[in-house]
């Protein structure tokens, strides 16, 4: 039945959203709501700052402390608590992102409906929201990792001598990169549900005059 319809009036399926355009739109959506974006990002910044400082201080402590005895006793006791705290903070961060993105979707029902009226497919809208979350996540994570590292560095400098020479830089940077990757991924994962909800919005919502 559909095949007949298609051939009859030349209905096609080709609708595109080039990546470049998608990025442009998503970046601007972040920029136009810059304060809101900062607040959303603040959660990621703090979580990743904590996460990265925990990650790096573990490797740094091993390298910096002259004799291992005291450190081993320390970390053995703290390890479980640390892991627990990190897991909780990451979870809270993801929930925070989901919440912020859901608000954003509700607020932008008209914009989303309009895009769909103009021919956007569900996954265009999903893509836009995921890119937005990815951009927020990446920026927030980089800021957070830098912040976390900076504070750890200050703490080490207060405790030990020769911090810059004896620090295992390579290992530290790998862990900072890990923190950034986790933060970005978390942000995108947190945005999946809101993005899908946005994608499913009916185009007729563009005509709603009440929220």
């Amino acid at each position, binding site marked *: 039945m559909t095949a007949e319809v298609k051939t*009859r*009036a030349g209905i096609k399926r080709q*609708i*595109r*959203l080039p990546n470049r*355009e998608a990025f442009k739109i998503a970046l*601007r959506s972040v920029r136009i709501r810059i304060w809101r974006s900062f607040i959303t990002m603040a959660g990621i910044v703090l979580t990743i700052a904590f996460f990265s400082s925990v990650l790096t201080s573990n490797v740094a402590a091993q390298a910096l402390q002259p004799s291992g005895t005291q450190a081993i006793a320390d970390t053995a006791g703290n390890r479980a608590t640390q892991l627990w705290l990190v897991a909780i903070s990451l979870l809270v961060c993801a929930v925070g992102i989901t919440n912020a993105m859901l608000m954003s979707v509700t607020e932008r029902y008209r*914009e989303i409906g309009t895009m769909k009226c103009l021919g956007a497919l569900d996954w265009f809208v999903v893509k836009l929201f995921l890119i937005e979350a990815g951009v927020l996540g990446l920026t927030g994570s980089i800021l957070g990792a830098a912040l976390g590292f900076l504070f750890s560095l200050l703490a080490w400098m207060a405790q030990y001598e020769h911090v810059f020479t004896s620090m295992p830089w390579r290992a530290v940077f790998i862990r900072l990169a890990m923190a950034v990757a986790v933060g970005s991924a978390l942000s995108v994962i947190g945005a999946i549900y809101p993005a899908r909800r946005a994608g499913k919005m009916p*185009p007729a919502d*563009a005509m709603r005059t009440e929220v």
Partner: protein
Amino acid sequence: MAEAALQTSLEYAVKTMNVSKEYVMGKQTLMALKGVSVEIRVGEYISIMGPSGSGKSTLFNMIGGLDKPSGGKVFIDEVDVSGLDAYELAWLRCRKIGYIFQTFNLIPVMTALENCTLPMIFAGMSTQDAMDKGAELLGLVGLGDRLRHKPLELSGGQQQRVAIARSFANDPTIILADEPTGNLDLKTGKEIIELLRKLNKEKNVTIISATHDLKMLDVSDRIIWIRDGLVDKIENRAEVDIDIGSLEGEEA
């Protein structure tokens, strides 16, 4: 050439056959439309009138390919909408139908020009071609000097002009206008109506609008009155006696 052939073969831009729509709300079923059959010819300027709750919006959404009927058939440009999947519906909305809204609905983060180019980008046109055509369309609606303005930097009337330019982006067969003058003052509303009428004549595009604006009725070829989910009456412009001056007051 090709377009002329198209127009003779496609007599109706929109045709509905005994369309019904029911909404299930808990245990109750609401019949928003109870069997509506209308035929709208290519190039016509149609107004749909009716009190709120009459099913006017529902019919309007059906005609615009925004909603599917529970019963009956809707043909848009000779295509049965109920047989289309999501991709085909998106294609139809992108290429065949242009939408104009009461609240303008420009994308706030984009300039006037970018708003106009969006449907063309969806349609796969290259950015440069889309920019050229967008600028041309904005010139056509009298905003040639406002290309780089954001919606918030434009007045209501100017925003609606951008929206009109955007609706014409992919040379649609049908323009669907939902209360296009509802958020505008009298004078601006009149300018918008005149612009729509001009484009309707120049481009032979079908314009279908839901409206309460009597100025809008005045330029319509036909008026479809909806009441209680049914077509109450269909009037030709010639049969309707509207005296705008006495109804809305003289404009200075």
